[in-house]
């Protein structure tokens, strides 16, 4: 079996849509470690990907006014027990463009693997980008995931990102996202992570509401059990008139796990408003009793609640 076939098979068994990788109507980029295995583009989308001495470099541009009909699939992974994958990505959506990128990050056998992504995104005036990143990890917890992302959202632009790591062990996760939103721009950042054993989770999301009437929400949902630890930092700065931001963090803690939430809200313009809410602790007692009154055992009730917040 070739490496691409193996990556595709892992992607499929993790619930990914294998047909999308084979379909000529869908753009994709697939890489294992530092090797680019396959790529395809579609009209209006320019992808310049190359292998460098220490990783993969890609420049992705969606041309002015182009609205991609199908999501662009990015399939990254390390299929061996040990290895490193470094990805440097520059994404640009030109004025009025629209695209949805779906990244599948696959580490099924990882015992000592590092996955490092350093990305910058530029969203032009009136453009819209959705970025969904879903991780499929094996049971060993030997993955270090370090995604770093810096996004500029132009006037009337929209940016939505959704990070999900709820399958397998997390290992060590260190997310660092920064988004700057221009006039009337919208940014939504969502992360869902389920940590087990000794998983170590750090999430830092920062939004700068720089433009008038810009809006944002940072939403984080983390569940941890056993001896896992999590620290979630949600930062929003309201720096312009009419800016509205909200930070919403929920962490469910079981066993000996330890969670921390650090909301930082700052307003530098009297016409801006930023709010936050954080809930950390064991599963809500009333939610538990409500489900138990429907006949669910305490274990089943916890499972329903945790799966719900991570969905």
């Amino acid at each position: 079996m070739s490496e691409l076939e193996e990556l595709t098979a892992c992607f499929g068994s993790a619930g990914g849509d294998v047909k999308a990788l084979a379909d000529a109507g869908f753009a994709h980029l697939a890489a294992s470690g530092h090797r680019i295995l396959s790529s395809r583009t579609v009209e209006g989308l320019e992808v310049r990907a190359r292998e460098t001495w220490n990783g993969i470099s890609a420049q992705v541009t969606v041309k002015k006014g182009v609205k991609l009909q199908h999501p662009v699939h990015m399939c990254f992974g390390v299929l061996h027990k040990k290895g490193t994958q470094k990805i440097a990505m520059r994404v640009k959506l030109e004025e009025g463009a629209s695209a949805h990128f779906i990244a599948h990050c696959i580490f099924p056998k990882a015992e000592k693997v590092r996955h490092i992504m350093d990305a910058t995104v530029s969203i032009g005036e009136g453009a819209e980008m959705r970025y969904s990143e879903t991780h499929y990890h094996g049971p060993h917890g030997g993955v270090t995931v370090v995604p770093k992302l810096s996004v500029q959202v132009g006037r009337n632009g929209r940016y939505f990102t959704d990070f999900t790591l709820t399958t397998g062990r997390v290992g060590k996760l260190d997310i660092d996202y920064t988004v700057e939103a221009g006039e009337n721009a919208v940014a939504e950042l969502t992360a869902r992570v389920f940590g087990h054993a000794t998983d170590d989770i750090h999430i830092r999301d920062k939004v700068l509401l720089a433009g008038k009437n810009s809006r944002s929400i940072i939403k984080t949902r983390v569940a941890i059990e056993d001896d896992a630890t999590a620290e979630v930092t949600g930062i929003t700065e309201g720096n312009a008139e009419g800016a509205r931001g909200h930070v919403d963090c929920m962490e469910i803690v079981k066993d000996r796990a330890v969670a921390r939430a650090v909301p930082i809200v700052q307003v530098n313009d009297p016409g801006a408003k930023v709010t936050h809410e954080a809930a950390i602790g064991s599963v809500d007692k009333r939610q538990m009793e409500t489900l138990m009154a429907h006949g669910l055992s305490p274990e089943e009730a916890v499972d329903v609640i945790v799966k719900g917040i991570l969905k």
Partner: protein
Amino acid sequence: MALLEIHDLVYETNAHHAARILDGLSLSVEGGEVHALIGTNGTGKSTLASVIMGCEGYGATSGDVAFDGKSLAGLKVHERARLGITMAWQEPVRFEGITVNQYLLLRRDSGDPAQYLELVGMSAQRYEGRMVDRSLSGGERKRIELASLLALQPKLAILDEPDSGIDMLSTQDIINVIAAFKAGGSAVLLITHREEIAAIADRASQLCGGRIVCTGNPAKVAEHYKARHCDICTGRECHYV
């Protein structure tokens, strides 16, 4: 034998600030009966509901609660639910990531949630895919809770103020829901402050000072309640009106 038999129930809050909320309360609910429970705020109606359901922190100090001839002492909420008791709280909680459809089918592999939504006056087409989260209004969430209890087909449904948060025009919907429980063979212990809702019960009881002070025809119990006979009743044995 009654479906629910409560005898000389005492419930006190924790030892440091002990307050006796239920003080020798006795009550029975027959199978298939709608039994309304009325009384002023703070008399212990919701506490009684939580004690019957076995909620954490609501263990009886003394006395006994029996269901279907068996004592419920020591049983947890889900064990009581599996015997056929369920409860709708006055303010139902929200759940992220669970659709109305999934909520109505908890612990069931299949079924038609639509019929239960229609029984509470909701359109299945509009609500099945919605989340049981903060996107629902208080009234919508309450109706969905009632629908989920109907789907369980319990032997006893404890409804704690099912009418609160429901608009005035929808009173008839609540009456219909209670009738649906009864038609399905469920008994209902109905906590309410609204006379027109209590009126549909087979019997009613007035709770005062942690005890049932009178039981009987709902209209007569309501009359007794409104006449503020409570002070006279306290300290006397429960009587029928």
